[in-house]
């Protein structure tokens, strides 16, 4: 139906910065004073993986509680989920666990990326995040830190998703092109190396 190769969904508590992250990825811009998303917004971007074009469709969902019961519409058959929390408010990680549980129950094939946002606002290295890293390992998820303000880490996540898609497609055994989170497990933490999202 659509010309999207990989469906990606962003989940997480309200105000952690999902919309800013998507805005940075799609348009390379940082908007201050973003207003609360209504329902979900869809945007798409073409990425290049070794000369191959991959279209990534991103669903940016609203974080308000009232949408939770309907979130299934948005993450259904997603190949990757960016479950976001705010690095300047580690309390927001609690919600991550709820989302991960729900995804694992309903979308087994969906790769889970646990994404810390607003890394420009804190000393990332000093954060007490051992438990979180353990948790990410345990659920076979990837961990990234990002800053929509500086662009740090954002391109890397989507590049990773796109590459995983291409690798899967080239593997003859699985034509569905889905990412298998069990393979190529990689837990990454700490600051990313300043790739800008041009």
């Amino acid at each position: 139906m659509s010309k999207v190769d990989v469906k990606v969904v962003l989940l997480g508590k309200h105000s952690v910065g999902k919309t800013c992250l998507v805005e940075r990825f799609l348009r390379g811009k940082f908007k201050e004073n973003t207003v609360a998303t209504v329902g979900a917004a869809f945007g798409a971007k073409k990425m290049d993986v070794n000369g191959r074009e991959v279209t990534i469709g991103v669903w940016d969902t609203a974080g308000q509680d009232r949408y939770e019961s309907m979130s299934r519409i948005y993450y259904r058959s997603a190949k990757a989920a960016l479950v976001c929390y705010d690095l300047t408010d580690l309390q927001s990680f609690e919600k991550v666990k709820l989302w991960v549980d729900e995804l694992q129950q309903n979308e087994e094939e969906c790769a889970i990326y646990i994404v810390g946002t607003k890394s420009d606002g804190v000393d990332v290295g000093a954060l007490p995040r051992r438990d979180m890293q353990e948790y990410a390992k345990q659920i076979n998820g990837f961990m990234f830190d990002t800053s929509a303000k500086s662009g740090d880490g954002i391109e890397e996540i989507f590049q990773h998703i796109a590459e995983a898609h291409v690798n899967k497609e080239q593997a003859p055994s699985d034509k569905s092109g889905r990412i298998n989170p069990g393979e190529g497990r990689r837990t990454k933490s700490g600051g990313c190396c300043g790739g800008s999202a041009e």
Partner: protein
Amino acid sequence: MSGLVDLPADDLQDPFGEEVHIKRKSNATFIDSDTDDSNLARDLKDSLVLDENKDLNVSSVIESDTAAEEEDRRKRNSSFVEQPLPPEIEETFGRKYSHEDSSHPNWVKHKKHVFALSLAGKPIYSRYGDEQNLAPFMGALTAMVSFVQVMDDNLRYVVAGAHRFAFLVRGSIILVSVSRTDEPTAQITSQLNYIYSQIISILTAGVNQIFSRKPNFDLRSLLGGADRFIDSLNTLMDHDFSFLLNSIHCLKLPPQTRASIAQVLQQAQHTDLLYSIMIAGHQLINLVRPKKYVLQPADLHLVINFVHASTALRNGNENWTPLCLPKFNDTGFLHAYVCFIAPDVCLLLLSTKQECFFELSSCKGMITQGLNVKGAGSLGPNFSLMDDILKAYENPDYSVSELGVPGLLHFVYRSKGTLQYTCPRFETPYNTSKEQKRLYRMYQRVHRRTHGLKLAHKVYYQVSQLETFLGWVTAGFELFAVFGPLDTKSMCIKGCNDILKWIKNEENSIMIINSPVW
């Protein structure tokens, strides 16, 4: 020369401004503050008169319950008033007056407060101030409502000096307006109804089930971020005729253009598509619907408010969001594909299916393609339907001078058959927002005179210092026209006939006469 004609006594302002009347559903009961046995009335008189130099103090009404709380609140806020918030902190609150509460000197000065609370007294919404900090005040409002409910009756309004407290209980939600805007109570109540519909539109009537299971439920946890929909509705209802007349305002377009747009919308049909709606600003461009399901004006108003209250929808992306249209079905959600196809032109595709985003997205593709075909518009071979829309939106409606009616300053015409209305744009002397608001309030009063339950005049004529009003209501239309203060009655009547003639000629461009269906 100047003077009010035909002013029924029951709506006259109380000249003393001190007496308190409680008006209940059964008109028989008036509690007057002068009667000795009426403790509530005396308490109200003490507490509810909102002079600007008096603090709003309702604690006496619910003394026993909240005395401690009240004391606590005062302590908390006394320092607050002395040290106003620095602007940068105020910004982080998001809403303009959110730092105020009932003890704040500015809070009582707002002309029109609107509150929503649960039957159990939990705050849901306040137009000004943070609803959480207003909990004691909301408690007082609940006490007033339940005091009358105990007597098996409903509290409708309370007049306290210049202020009018209007109450409406819908389901498990109490809506209250406290205003000194001189608006007729029936219209305030209708506005409160709209606010209830707005809450339902966000959450569906399922909220009442939540409350019946858990009367103490804090609805704000579900309404998070929805304040701005209600705020924007409140602002709109203070100047938009759509709400007063319960009718739709269409963008003025050449008839051929509107028909072509209807065709473009109709061609982009899909089995899951229920309504296709195109709006420019707050005006309807066109709307395609199933033959059986008329879209009620009240639902369309909520859709338009929804689109405009949320700047997040203008993100350049395609949006997919649940939306309940209470008149259509208040128990479930429709799913709305929302996309701004030009800066102020919005396309909404509503469906009952939650999984058809991409189907509707391709419908949108067809529609934008159709709208951008060169030569399809009325402006020439190099212009498209979209150019027509943008031109019409840039210069909306028409000037009153186009009608060539001597003395005519402004008018509003409502067609009862199509539930649409038309009016010229505001021009001198109504070029300031203050004058526009005054005019709007005058229209509200004239409207009331022609729609009151007891005193509904077919024709109503009123001369005041600044203008002459003529209201004319028939089976087919309603016309409210404003002329200069010196214009004679016969001149005004002739003027009204000329307006009707002009509208008959222009009908096809100012209204949607044949509503397209599929």
